[in-house]
């Protein structure tokens, strides 16, 4: 977890920290893919954020304690960049008891109140309006917190985004909308989903501070984010589009037959991890060997998440009825219990 405003304290340059964190995200996602291939993930609805690391890292570096955020179905990287424990994440993705949500949520429903993560969402756009409410809470409770909604370009098809932006602007809430434009919603390219792909213009029309930044360079993302987030914290809600490319298929089984290889090859050149690495080396800030050492360290860290998640146990069947309602409330009556009761007639 990086705090871009408190880097003096760190021993590395900010860019090095960014690189390290982006590499962690990428490696984690690669391991998620592996978990699936090994048949150990809960299902195949796994959406990797490879290619989008600068969005996760560049934004999260500007978050503060108390800030809150919601993410989408492609949110692993964001949560990791905010400080999540990758082992508990992987366990959740495997549907295990040791996961963040005890195996009930999975890849698309990870949350952690400790880190202000109000939850990933499997409904495109579903997590967006919550930040308006969190923004109201921040305003009324004077916490000085900002609430962030992360979502993809596809979510700009959802009406609730506009309702939420309108409210945020009207009430001058400390809210930040982060649109990760990876050019695709499943098989639909952004220009096949809208006549005007300059998405930030919509936000402007509602009165938000809005811009688009190229996600290739994490430092650019960080800079744009820092500026807009400062505004948001002061009551000018903002909207940032981060342009990037979805390196792989929509979910684990999608081989992207709807786009050609040339396009993919070009898209993958837009690699924020490699870009940061090249910059670190060419500027002489770090050597290739140092970076390789980091990468290896990270690989080890992430390998362990797989072992951990596989070794952990499945949730107990009895936990099924827990947490529908608050602790202390009666659990829903199991169908079997009901039947036994109904059929236990004299």
């Amino acid at each position, binding site marked *: 977890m990086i705090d871009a405003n408190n880097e003096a304290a760190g021993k590395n340059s900010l860019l090095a920290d960014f690189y390290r964190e982006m590499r962690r995200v990428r490696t984690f996602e690669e391991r998620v893919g592996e978990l699936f291939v090994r048949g150990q993930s809960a299902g195949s609805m796994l959406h990797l954020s490879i290619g989008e690391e600068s969005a996760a890292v560049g934004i999260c570096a500007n978050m503060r304690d108390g800030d*809150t955020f919601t993410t989408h179905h492609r949110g692993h990287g964001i949560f990791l960049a905010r400080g999540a424990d990758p082992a508990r994440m992987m366990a959740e993705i495997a549907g295990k008891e040791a996961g963040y949500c005890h195996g009930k949520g999975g890849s698309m429903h990870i949350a952690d109140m400790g880190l202000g993560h*109000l939850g990933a969402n499997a409904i495109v756009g579903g997590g967006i*309006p919550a930040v308006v*409410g969190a923004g109201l809470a921040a305003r*009324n*409770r004077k916490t000085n917190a900002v609430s962030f909604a992360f979502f993809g370009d596809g979510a700009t098809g959802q009406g609730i985004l506009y309702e939420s932006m309108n*409210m945020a602007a009207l009430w001058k809430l400390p809210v930040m909308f982060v649109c990760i434009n990876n050019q695709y919603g499943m098989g639909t390219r952004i220009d096949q989903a809208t006549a005007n792909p300059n998405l930030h213009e919509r936000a402007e029309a509602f009165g938000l501070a809005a811009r688009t930044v190229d996600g290739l360079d994490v430092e650019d993302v960080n800079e744009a984010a820092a500026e807009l987030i400062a505004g948001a914290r002061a009551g000018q809600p903002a909207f940032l589009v981060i342009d990037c490319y979805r390196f792989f298929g929509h979910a684990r089984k999608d081989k992207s037959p709807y786009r050609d290889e040339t396009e993919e090859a070009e898209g993958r050149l837009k690699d924020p991890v490699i870009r940061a690495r090249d910059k670190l080396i060419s500027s002489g800030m770090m050597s290739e060997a140092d970076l390789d050492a980091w990468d290896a360290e990270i690989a080890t860290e992430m390998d362990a998440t797989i072992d951990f998640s596989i070794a952990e146990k499945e949730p107990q069947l009895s936990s099924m009825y827990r947490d529908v309602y*608050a602790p202390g409330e009666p659990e829903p009556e199991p169908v079997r219990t009901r039947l036994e009761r109904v059929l236990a007639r004299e």
Partner: protein
Amino acid sequence: MAKIETTYRDALRLALTEAMQADDNVIIMGEEVGRYGGAYGVTKGLIDEFGEDRVIDTPISEAAIVGAAVGAGMAGLRPVAELMYVDFIGMTMDQLANQAAKIRYMFGGQIGVPMVLRTQGGTGRSAGAQHSQSLEAYVMHTPGLRLAMPSTVDDAYHLLRQALKQPDPVVFIEHKGLYTMKGTLDTDAEPAGWGKARVMREGADIVIVSYSRQLHHALAAAEILARENGIQAAVIDLRTLNPLDFDTIRPLVEQAGRAMVVSEGAMTSGVAAELAARITEECFDFLEDPVVRVAGEDIPISVSPLLEKHSVPTPEFISDAVRMMLK
């Protein structure tokens, strides 16, 4: 305060006022809840007492209103969102059923969504097909959502106070035909508990289970039956549909051997179906007749006052139905 004569509407407002006085985190948000005072006047004056930051007029954005309430609830407020008509719940069902209802569970119990969604439903104002529905079945069918439907002045106050203490999302559906109803409210009296049904009338011949405005139709029918036919009908007010209090229903039905459920919602796959199925399961050996469902017709509501009136149960219809059972 003790006992006061008041209306359903004013009792609701009193509950909101007291809750807001007691806890700064309680906020109200919805269309026209502030300056206008609420489409049915429930929130009148609250903006003057509590200010714009706590009584929040929203744009006409039902989905985001509910969604914002979800986020507010997760972030430490205790939002009371208002949906002007329950008929608009369709726009909010994703936020309500996929978000509010499931957040605690999906996130493994880390957090709940302590919000109340106040709304109103039902017929009686020639408001037409899109402003007269009784859609509580959508809510009752959604695990994770509590559902309260006050029928009395007393409960307008007490149930709302109780709803505001729940750790889980509560959909609180008032009835547009009840706002001007007068009654006695005892704010100090120990109310019936949250999730407890109330026996409104005793009677050994049949048990009528109802809620919201139809409770009054059931009581009126019971009066007619007692007067005209000497039939004694017990009448139960469910008060909340989730939790559903079966312990109050069971012994009465076992004793009477006959039960009827009365609901304004459309018959098919509605609340009346659940109640009938449940009573049958639990009291099968005691039943002389199948549990009778008296419910809304399976049709949209017309604006014509005549058609509207007969689209849902009337006291006459209920008493006819009881007579048909007992003849």
